[in-house]
């Protein structure tokens, strides 16, 4: 049994439905999404319960955002007050948990964020800002903690969160999602295991459609909980999407409100942050009740959502598939040291200390296509600094071309020096190739942006 950070105390709830903000008036990610949840929570009198402490939202600072993302052209163009409140609320609850003021916290906020990657050219999968990542990097910086585990239980692969922590061996990212061959964003396969120095610290659990409570809880019990025990994180975050529900209109899973409660109860996250979930009437009010009750240690055995019951039987062959999946992923986790040792040895052998990867990212909400080349400095002493070369195109042509340098929180002095050198060289010599060049130094909270055409540098 994993020991939670705080043994006792109230459950902090921050309910921010952002009733006056939406992507567009008819988009599923809009104001009414949490309307019936609001009605249910208020009618139940949840906020009056002694186990619950309700909080007033706060806004994240721009630096908190710059610590995680490169927003192109800048944060002001991509981020609204609603985003800053959603991220700020997660940060607030994180602070309260770290200070022992509450036992755990649930941030029921809009908009969601787990599809937002490190580089942000626009909205993707209804997300512009990765709330959990912003919270985690803020907490690591402020409290000096290092190892964090994120369990993404949204039905969609948390590709944004995966991208942000891809090269970070101190963040264990586990994502449950419907198989990418059948659902957006089409990724999250078992072969995606993490960068060369973080191999086995990204674990993807692609689930077959119609997997029920039984299947999901089997994976939780036999894979996730034992690995959390092995990893010994200082914080466990539940990136809690509610679209796994059997009535969700955008996906095909078979999870129930009771199943959600049981998952949360077993996982015992320190903080849960709301992600997706679009079954506004038949799922969200009841799933949110279930989550609150599980977090607060209230008996949830009487909770049943009205309407037709959840499917009880797994699709044929599913349990065998899940058993195999569990074994495969466990083995990947425990090969981390072996794989990183091999990488370091190879680098020494060829005397090249950089790893490169390229990918294409599609922004479905804004119809942008991004090509990205990402380089990691492979370092035996720290996670290593990274650089990104990213070009974004819309139908009629290129809209942005950027170069960004990122220095991790626990970078060694050597890597920091190299990274600054790289940034300065880019500004001096390659400015004509780009629109903007960015520097992100998480440890020193230094965030710079060089506007190439004007040859002007600004610092946050």
């Amino acid at each position, binding site marked *: 049994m994993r020991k939670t950070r705080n043994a006792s105390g109230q459950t902090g709830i921050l309910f921010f439905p952002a*009733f006056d903000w939406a992507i567009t008036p008819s988009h599923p990610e809009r104001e009414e999404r949490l309307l019936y949840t*609001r009605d249910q929570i208020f*009618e*139940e009198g949840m906020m009056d319960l002694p186990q619950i402490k309700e909080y*007033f939202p706060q806004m994240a600072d721009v630096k908190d955002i710059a610590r995680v993302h490169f927003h192109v052209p800048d944060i002001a163009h991509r981020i609204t007050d609603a985003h800053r*409140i959603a991220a700020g609320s997660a940060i607030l609850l994180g602070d309260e948990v770290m200070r022992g003021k509450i036992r755990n916290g649930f941030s029921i906020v809009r908009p969601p964020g787990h599809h937002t990657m490190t580089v942000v050219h626009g909205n993707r999968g209804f997300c512009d800002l990765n709330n959990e990542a912003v919270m985690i990097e803020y907490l690591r910086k402020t409290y000096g903690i290092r190892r964090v585990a994120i369990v993404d239980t949204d039905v969609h692969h948390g590709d944004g969160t995966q991208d942000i922590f891809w090269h970070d061996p101190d963040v264990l990212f586990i994502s449950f999602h419907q198989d990418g061959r059948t659902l957006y964003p089409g990724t999250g396969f078992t072969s995606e295991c993490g960068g060369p120095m973080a191999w086995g610290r990204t674990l993807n659990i692609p689930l077959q459609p119609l997997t029920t409570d039984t299947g999901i809880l089997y994976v939780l019990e036999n894979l996730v909980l034992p690995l959390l025990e092995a990893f010994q994180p200082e914080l466990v975050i539940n990136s809690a999407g509610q679209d796994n529900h059997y009535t969700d209109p955008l996906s095909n899973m078979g999870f129930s409100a009771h199943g959600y409660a049981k998952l949360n109860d077993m996982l015992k996250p320190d903080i849960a942050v709301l992600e997706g979930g679009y079954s506004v009437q038949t799922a969200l009010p*009841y799933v949110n009740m279930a989550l609150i009750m599980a977090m607060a240690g209230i008996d949830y055995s009487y*909770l049943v959502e009205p309407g037709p019951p959840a499917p009880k039987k797994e699709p044929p062959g599913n349990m065998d598939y899940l058993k195999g999946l569990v074994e495969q992923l466990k083995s990947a986790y425990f090969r981390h040291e072996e794989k990183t040792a091999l990488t370091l040895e190879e680098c020494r052998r060829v005397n090249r200390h950089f790893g490169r990867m390229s990918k294409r990212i599609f922004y479905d909400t804004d119809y942008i296509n991004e090509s990205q080349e990402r380089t990691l400095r492979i370092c035996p002493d720290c996670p290593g600094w990274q650089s990104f070369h990213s070009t974004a195109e819309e139908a009629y042509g290129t809209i942005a071309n950027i170069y960004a340098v990122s220095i991790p929180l626990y970078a060694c002095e050597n890597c920091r020096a190299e990274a600054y050198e790289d940034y300065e060289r880019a500004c001096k010599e390659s400015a004509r190739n780009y629109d903007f060049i960015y520097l992100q130094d998480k440890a020193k909270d230094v965030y710079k942006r060089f506007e190439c055409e004007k040859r002007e540098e600004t610092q946050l």
Partner: protein
Amino acid sequence: MLLGIDVGGTYTDAALYEAGKILKTSKFPTRPDNLQTSLINAITSLLSAGEAAGKTLQRIVIGTTVVTNLLATGRELPTALILMPGHSLPPGSYRICPHQYFISGMVDFRGRVVEEIEESELDDCLGWLKKNGFTRIAIAGKFSNRNPVQELEAARYIQNALPGATLVLSHQISARLNFPRRAVTAYYTAMVKQPWADFSTALQQALDQLNIQCEVHILKADGGTLPLAAMLDAPCETIFSGPAASVMGALALHPQSGNAVVVDVGGTTSDLALIVGSQPLYASRGAVINDQPTQIDAFSVNSVPLGGDSLIETENGLPVIRPYRQGAAVCFGGSALTLTDIMNVRYTLQLGDAAASARAVKTFSDGAGLLPETLCCQIEQQAVDQLEKQIHHMMRLWETEPAYKVWEVVHRQPFTIQKLIGIGAGAPLVLPQLAKRLGVPLEMSPYAPSANAVGAALVRLTLRVTLHADTATKKYTLSPPTVTDTLPRSQMQLEQVKEMAARHLKELCTAQQINLPEETFAFYLTEQFNVISGWGEDSGRIFDVGVQIPPGFIEDFTGVIE
């Protein structure tokens, strides 16, 4: 001429007002065993005073503790509560009263019935009611204010079998969401409905006998009034009328208060209330009765156990202020040192027998091994500390009240006090020092000791109308009284819904013979949402509109001339 009476725990205060002038005030000890006599005595005494000669009484407003006493003293009024909580929290989490009975049945947030009540359960419930001889019964179901059909069904079944029983249904209590609070309020309402009706009848008869023909209003916890007859359905709203009277009295005596703190210093307690933008602050969780939050709107008033008669003693050799009184101040004939005596000496207030205060202070300070000046300083410090701490706590609570809209978060202002308003007999004792500590001006009216009665005399009717309309289900719920019906048309805009609510408020006013200009109507809630089912947009909207006559003063009131 207007007459205001506030029946407090120890004293009944009364005030006579006409055309900007306070004609007379008086104070009588309250007879807790016969509140009616206390009231009638106060009324007759004031009306027979010289200042009232030749004038016509237009209205009497009464703040009474009848219901507060019934609820607190535990007079035996066993009441049953029938609950239909549906399927979420475990039944064990509802611990509202000792006589609870659960039945099935469930309505959802759209007012759709998702589970019917089992008739056999109603039968069993009836058996239980009969066996225990319950004649006071409350029924509460979740989302009953979106669709009261199940509460009505259960009520019909029970009333048929028990025609003499007092039945209160939670959907009539409030159209606001919060089932536990609604159930608590329905329970207490069922409990006190008959005793209040008895008191109301007896009071009316007594007034008739005295040939008093004017309107009689009752003061509510939200600082407004309702005619005596209208209170029969909502007797619980008469609780906490004392703090309501005091706060409204403070506002009457000090218009343009801005952001202020009202401190009412009494004999044993000081009540503090925040005024924000000249408007009194409501308790965010409703009034709390016996540790249970209710759906009764009440001012947010915090009590500090500190008053003029607070006993001064030593503890571990240091002087302390006790949170209770032993008797009157020494300067008023008492035997033990009180806060009044300390301040009497320190600031030469010349209250009562000032020499007696001085002697008592000297004796006490000698006994404690302190100089009299040091003793007085320390006690004053403690008193001001206590009050200051409570004020900061209240400000902090107000600043961190949860918000659900981006606008509210972005525009939340910290609370800055602009002034301190002192009322109550003990105000001059500590408030000047508190004001100095806070760095704000202190305002005290010569009528401060009777602010509560003055407030009662001057307040106007308050009324809140809520309308929830759902154009997709084509139903609306309008309250009070709570009625669900079909919408007049399938397409509605926010303006039309607001108009519907305002019209209902106007009708309620007319029924009470209240003529208030529509400018007084204030919308405190206007929300609209598009209805979606699954993906995509259905052609439907949900509206939540609230319009009220906010707490305020009678139409002709322009201020009190000092």
